């Protein structure tokens, strides 16, 4: 095994990891604040990718299409929260999970009607020769993926640490009743989380499309991978979600390279099984010992 090859797998893994981290952050943001697991997250990814690809095809400039698409998917996330999650806010957690699964199937169906089964390409964000890092090649799009996901993650962290809104979201996650007593409305926070997560998902879909192209069913697998990354990181920690995303990306790329690329998805779900069986609280989560 040559070191260059390992380096190549590592770089591929990091690129994949950036995507997974963005999707995982969507899961974690919604879960910590509202207690719901939103399996529609993958469809946000798909919508972001397809809307951008269609707009670029229709003649819109790339960056304008990207921004418009992220905003549109954010709006879609907000409408989804108001129309679907809000009416079910007092239902048991399992009911809401099933609602989000059902809704994701419906969204995929509508996407099939609109876009059909063909795949939509998107040009790379910049052209030029690939970069060479320690003997491994890294195309320009991978650099974009890494940089944009790291930028989004840093902005999100700054938002949680530096702004009152971010702290209010944290407060809502720590103690919902006490947060209400401070005038923080959990319903508004929920609306905000869904919008934010939809935008994160859309970004993930957009940055990956130049490499993989966009199809109506791309959200299913990407959504599940994001969920695995979130569980890997403990489901309640934003740092955990980012680490989980990158770890999953690297393990997948290594597995695909060293064993067989056919096992790529199997590796992710094997990791999910192992985590759930051996360390259900994830890598960074705390054991769920409820204080009496």
């Amino acid at each position, binding site marked *: 095994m040559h070191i260059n090859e390992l380096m190549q797998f590592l770089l591929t893994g990091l690129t994949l990891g950036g995507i997974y981290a963005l999707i995982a952050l969507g899961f974690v943001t919604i879960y910590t604040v509202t207690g719901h697991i939103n399996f529609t997250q993958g469809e946000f990814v798909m919508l972001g990718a397809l809307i951008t690809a269609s707009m670029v095809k229709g003649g819109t400039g790339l960056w304008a299409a990207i921004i418009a698409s992220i905003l549109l998917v954010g709006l879609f996330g907000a409408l989804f929260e108001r129309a679907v999650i809000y009416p079910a806010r007092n239902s048991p957690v399992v009911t809401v999970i099933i609602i989000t699964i059902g809704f994701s199937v419906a969204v995929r169906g509508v996407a099939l009607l609109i876009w059909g089964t063909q795949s939509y390409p998107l040009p790379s964000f910049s052209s030029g020769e690939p970069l060479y890092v320690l003997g491994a090649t890294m195309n320009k799009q991978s650099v974009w993926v890494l940089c944009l996901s790291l930028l989004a993650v840093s902005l999100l962290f700054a938002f949680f640490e530096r702004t009152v809104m971010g702290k209010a979201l944290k407060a809502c996650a720590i103690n919902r009743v006490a947060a209400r007593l*401070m*005038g923080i409305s959990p319903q508004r926070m929920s609306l905000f989380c869904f919008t934010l997560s939809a935008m994160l998902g859309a970004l993930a879909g957009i940055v990956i499309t130049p490499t993989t192209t966009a199809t109506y069913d791309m959200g299913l697998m990407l959504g599940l991978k994001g969920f695995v990354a979130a569980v890997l990181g403990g489901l309640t920690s934003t740092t955990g979600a980012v680490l989980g995303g990158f770890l999953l990306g690297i393990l997948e790329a290594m597995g695909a390279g060293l064993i067989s690329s056919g096992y790529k998805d199997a590796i992710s779900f094997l990791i999910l099984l192992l985590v759930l069986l051996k360390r259900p609280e994830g890598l960074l989560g705390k054991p769920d010992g409820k204080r009496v």
Partner: protein
Amino acid sequence: MLEVKNLHTRHGWNYALKGVSFRVPASHLVAVVGANGAGKSTLLGTVAGIYSCSEGEVLLEGLPIQRMPAEKIVRQGVCLVPEHRQIFDSLTVEDNLLLGAYPRWGGNRREIKTDMDYILTIFPALSDRLQDPAGGLSGGMQQMLAIGRGLMSKPKVLLLDEPSLGLAPLLVKEIFKTLDDLKKLGTTILLVEQNARAAMQVADRVYVMDHGQIVLEGSPEDLKKDHRMQQAYLGKGYMRPVREDSCEDYAVPKVLI
């Protein structure tokens, strides 16, 4: 300032409040005392909007607030410092205080900073720990933080649920001293306490609750003389031998009616 009229609240099928009425005049400290399970916390929870009442009214300066959700009631100026403090333990002390000012965020930030400095003069012990996670504070300091956080919203009425719970006697004394100071500064306070003796030292008026109803009311001086109050809550009379003729007077303290 705050008026509660014939308030009824149910937990499932059981009535936790059965027609509670009282008034809290401006710049007064009114205490509601009673045994465990008398309905005191439910009373504060209902006033603050955590529980919804089935009957009755809560009026804040004449405005009915009993149908508003908790997050809206805070904006009207009623702030509850909940039982067991319920601070945001993984956030810093400073963030906890800042979140207390959340209802009036978007207003003047300098004013919020000034208010925080003012609150730190009331609770000087917190100033050295501003950047520490609130969960690492001692019980007494957490209680101070919870009260400080409540004050940051600049409430018209501050509701306090058992601030002495789980604290050492010396700290209880300190907390009640602060409440007395706050009252003198013009804060309107509704205090709920099991520690009747401590509550009566600072209160202007005391209501005694039992089984979801107000069973006694009066000024602390009057209630201190009331023999039922003495036996049930102030710990006098337990040791005296029971006389045949006044047997019911020495019954279990809960049966006060």
